[in-house]
């Protein structure tokens, strides 16, 4: 069976690799991203890699009014949708969001509100067809607030809570909601940061997302050892955590 998959934020480092996994199984891919040149480059690549069909849609996902149209087109072009991945995101400059409210709102729009809005429209589609997988990329940064990126982390924490609730709502319809929490991944989003041995390649993360979409698990850490790292991080008492300078 050829899967019909919607990828939101299709030019992100992780999403590209996940799409390549779908292309290898000859899926049909509907790609949404902001930059038309990047989008075209990704679409060509996925066609060569075996995607049975590739549709592209150029959009700024922070423009909520376009969301219904995007989801409707993605769901109608092949008469239904088997999976959707919400992969767009940005890592805001913490110092900047602390001072500039517009940058702050933009960061929350990208990392939280737009993902929630898209999920709502997708939930309607999946609920009606009584099948589908909605995958959302969260982050380990959402598991505990840290001074270096707590705005980004709070958006990812909110997404996790939202996904947990949406999962319960869609359970009777047989729709799966999976939240994927990558640890550190080497992508254009993190290329300006000093990297250590815990960083994994975008390729590995992308394949992990692909596997998470097909697995029965509802919350997936990437790689899985982050589950234990974060369990420890969450359990550190606040006075000690404050001294860790994380």
């Amino acid at each position, binding site marked *: 069976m050829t899967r019909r998959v919607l990828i939101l934020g299709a030019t992100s480092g992780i999403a590209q690799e996940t799409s390549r996994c779908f292309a290898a199984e000859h899926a049909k891919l509907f790609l949404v991203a902001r930059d038309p040149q990047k989008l075209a480059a990704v679409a*060509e*690549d996925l066609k*060569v890699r075996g995607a049975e069909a590739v549709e592209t849609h150029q959009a700024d996902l922070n423009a909520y009014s376009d969301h219904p149209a995007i989801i409707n087109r993605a769901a109608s072009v092949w008469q239904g949708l088997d999976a959707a991945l919400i992969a767009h995101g940005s890592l805001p400059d913490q110092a900047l969001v602390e001072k500039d409210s517009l940058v702050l709102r933009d960061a929350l729009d990208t990392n939280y509100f737009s993902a929630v809005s898209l999920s709502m429209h997708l939930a309607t589609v999946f609920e009606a067809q009584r099948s589908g997988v909605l995958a959302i990329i969260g982050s380990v940064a959402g598991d505990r607030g840290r001074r270096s990126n707590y705005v980004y982390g709070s958006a990812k924490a909110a997404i996790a809570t939202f996904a947990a609730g949406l999962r319960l709502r869609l359970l009777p319809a047989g729709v799966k909601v999976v939240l994927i929490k990558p640890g550190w991944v080497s992508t*254009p989003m993190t290329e300006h940061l000093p990297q250590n041995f815990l960083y994994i390649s975008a390729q590995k993360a992308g394949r992990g997302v692909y596997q998470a979409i097909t697995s029965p698990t509802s919350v997936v850490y990437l790689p899985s050892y982050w589950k234990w790292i974060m369990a420890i991080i969450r359990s550190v008492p606040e006075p000690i955590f404050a001294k860790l300078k994380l």
Partner: protein
Amino acid sequence: MNSYTSWGRYPRSHPAEVVPLSWISRIPDFNQFSHPVLVYGKGRSYGDTCLNDGGVLLDSSGLDRFIQFDTHTGVLRCESGVTLQSVLRLSLPDWFLPVTPGTQFVTIGGAIANDVHGKNHHRAGSFGCHVRSFELLRSDKGRVFCSPEENKDLFAATIGGLGLTGMILWAEFQLKRASGPWIECEQIRFEKLDTFFELSAASDENYEYTVAWLDCASAGHKLGRGIFIRGNHSSAGPQDSHGPLPLPGFEAPEMLISRPTVRAFNWAYFNSQFRESTRNRVHYEKFFYPLDRVAEWNRLYGQRGFLQYQFVVPYQNREVVAEVLDLIARSREVCTLSVLKVFGSVSSPGLLSFPRPGVTLALDFPYQGQPTLDLCERFDQVMKRNGGVVYPAKDARMSAESFQTYFPQWKELSNFLDPRFESDFWRRVTPTNGNRQ
């Protein structure tokens, strides 16, 4: 941040800045940098052709997208950071690389810039022979489409042009028909070099791939013994299999690779083949890329790194091989690997290409300071007496005078250089600023 070393990890070089590239449509203007720039792919060049001390390295590994693949004609167009491994995973079982070096972890851009060759040189020439077109991005001319018909001089200068003629954005090349991932491989033991040359001459016509491993740790009457390897594609076997999983490499203590251990390894490898000849069907990854099995095997040499010396001499001067082996035997250097092959007469379109008709020998040495450099210098003297040429992609030490003797066409190449591009290699082997108009 990744480390940006060359494969031999000698010499060490420190770029002032590394710029990762992810999109052809978003390459920064090279003129905005205050230092000279150089594109760095997977760092598989052995010496310093891929290094730019104090300059800007543009990391092309994010340019890993395919653009077009015609499954009927085998013509593939892709971004320059795509690796040979990605190409093979896409193209098999129907198509194979027209030419492949001994590792699949090089980029297409690197394969063109170094005009790489492989075990089928006697049939197919070098990689550049199969390139149909590419697009360069230059600091002075912007995007330039190059093919054998259009901008043909720049096309020729870029093939084997050591990455100095501008950045290759994408390339289009011709794959060859394959009959699956398996190679029918025959290994034949030989005791002396004359036998190798006879075997090679007798195999050229019926075997697509020929190469030999030499036991370079032996001296005296055993000098020149080795194993001759020849093969053809096979249509038998499962079509979708992958090779063995890689093993991790690690930074080993330097005593791991020393004269006794290398001698023991070579003895064991040579004698592991009991019969004079064996036939096997082997997976292409095992046949072409045995060293890829160990990820980062270069680290086994330890901190000091290693050198590779690869030369080609005209066929009539093939006694140079024995002369070089003799120089090694009489030195205190440890030759860890030596690979011998007879090149054919297919000529490359590249202006500064290394492969040419004759006999080529590649030799690896752990870097042990001045004595290692001195031995290579003695090789250079032998090359100059015998019309030999040394491979820049492998080199970390040849003198400017040697380079200019081997490649008199370097002056012509300098007319095509991008004014913003430089490498440690080029600064070493050409006069400072003498290459600039």
